[in-house]
């Protein structure tokens, strides 16, 4: 005969019921059943008390509360990369330009950048026609460095096939120096660029720039305007 509690809690496992019956209702174990009951009550009482005191769950979760550790968060304010393009060195033809760029982003709008690039100057028309040499080969090595400041305006690029990329159009200006024709000259540069973020940390750049410095190679001093068009790839870290 089963009552409703037995039906609910003990019916699915008869053998447990059997053990309980044997333990508690066998006359030979009369004393034991009291001991067992006592132990059960005491232990459960102790259990409840300790669990209340320490406020610990019976089943301890294996994940501890996480505190945000700032040093573990990946920050990506630096951008480093390379570029290739063409530079028109005034009077000395256009040449392939190779360079590197590092940028530090102060905020969503502003960034610092440092750029170094190399090229090789060609021949002037005068040299070609007159069959003379104005510069030695080593003096034709052209390089510049520039550090400056830029302003970003964010946007998005939508391409066919449901591709969306974040972009930045930026204006940048800088100062630095140009080494060419055995001379180091203070140089201003200014220009604009378009940055397409392929992922959060890889970006494609297309830039157009002007570099201005004074030269006195041909006697009188004049401004040399060098236009640069380049494209590059940068990585944030």
């Amino acid at each position, binding site marked *: 005969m089963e009552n409703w509690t037995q039906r609910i809690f003990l019916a699915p496992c008869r053998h447990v019921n059997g053990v309980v019956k044997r333990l508690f209702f066998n006359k030979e174990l009369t004393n034991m*059943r009291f001991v067992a009951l006592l132990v059960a009550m005491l232990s459960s009482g102790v259990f409840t008390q300790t669990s209340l005191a320490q406020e610990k769950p019976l089943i301890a979760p294996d*994940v501890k509360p*996480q*505190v*945000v550790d700032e040093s573990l968060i*990946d920050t990506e304010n630096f951008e480093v990369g390379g570029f290739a393009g063409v530079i028109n060195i005034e009077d000395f033809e256009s040449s392939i330009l190779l360079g590197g760029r590092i940028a530090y982003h*102060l*905020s969503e709008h502003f960034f610092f950048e440092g750029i170094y690039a190399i090229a090789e100057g060609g021949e002037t028309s005068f040299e070609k026609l007159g069959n003379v040499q104005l510069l030695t080969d080593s003096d034709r090595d052209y390089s510049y460095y520039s550090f400056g400041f830029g302003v970003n305006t964010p946007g998005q690029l939508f391409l066919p096939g449901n591709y969306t990329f974040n972009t930045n159009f930026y204006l940048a200006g800088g*100062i630095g120096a140009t080494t060419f024709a055995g001379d180091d000259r203070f140089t201003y540069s200014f220009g604009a660029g378009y940055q397409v973020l392929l992922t959060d940390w890889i970006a494609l750049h297309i830039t157009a720039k002007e570099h201005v410095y004074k030269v006195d190679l041909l006697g009188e001093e004049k401004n040399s305007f060098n236009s640069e068009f380049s494209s590059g790839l940068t990585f*944030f870290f």
Partner: protein
Amino acid sequence: MLRKLITKSLTLLIILVVSSAVLQAELVWAEQIPVDAKLAKVQVTETFVEWRSGPAEGFPVFHVSERGEWLSLIRRKTDWMKVSDKSGRDGWIKMADLLLMIDGSGEKVNIVEPQFDDFNTRRWEAGLMSGEFENAAVNSAYAGYWMTENLSLELWGSQVLGDASEIKIINLNILHQPFPDWRVSPFFTLGAGMLFINPKATLADQNNRDEETMNAGFGLRYYVSNRYFVRMEVKEYKVFTNRETNEEATEWKIGLSVFF
């Protein structure tokens, strides 16, 4: 009778123990943060927080998270944090919003932003400057470490682009600012270094010269925002030559610097 009583009391006991255990465990599991253990988690405490598609105000808001939602922190760019929620979408939220949230400990998110009046967040600084060195253009870069609130050690590299020569200068300077709490803070500096003089190829005297030099100067720092500042300074150089008289040069510069 007794048998029924014992059975009932035993059953009740089992129910109590099991149910209390289950209840406690459930409570704990319900409060527990999502299981993806690699990323730090924060919980939204404001009514809602806006998500943008990129790390700038110019990008559109495309989603909001409500109070109580847990967000995983993926990466940070300037003042924006990329987050994801339990449904797997990701987007960018403002740091200012993030700093109002709580983490797994129930405390506010412990990210210390560099602040003008917090010395501990601005031990390192670096900057780029430009100006004039005896009527010739000069470009400089430096890095400095603040040993105390008042004293810092700086390493300088400069290039002077003169008409007659190109000069490279390396300096080690010690800098003292008496009023570190002022937004516009004056400073004094003393330094020593080397000058590497490289005359132009077109000049007759093409011998390179290396000279020792010392400098003293003063300047101002103006804090634009918590991370960056404008700096301007004047330095007087004494160049120790092998000739009978030593040379002197005055330099002024202005530039931008950043704290790390």
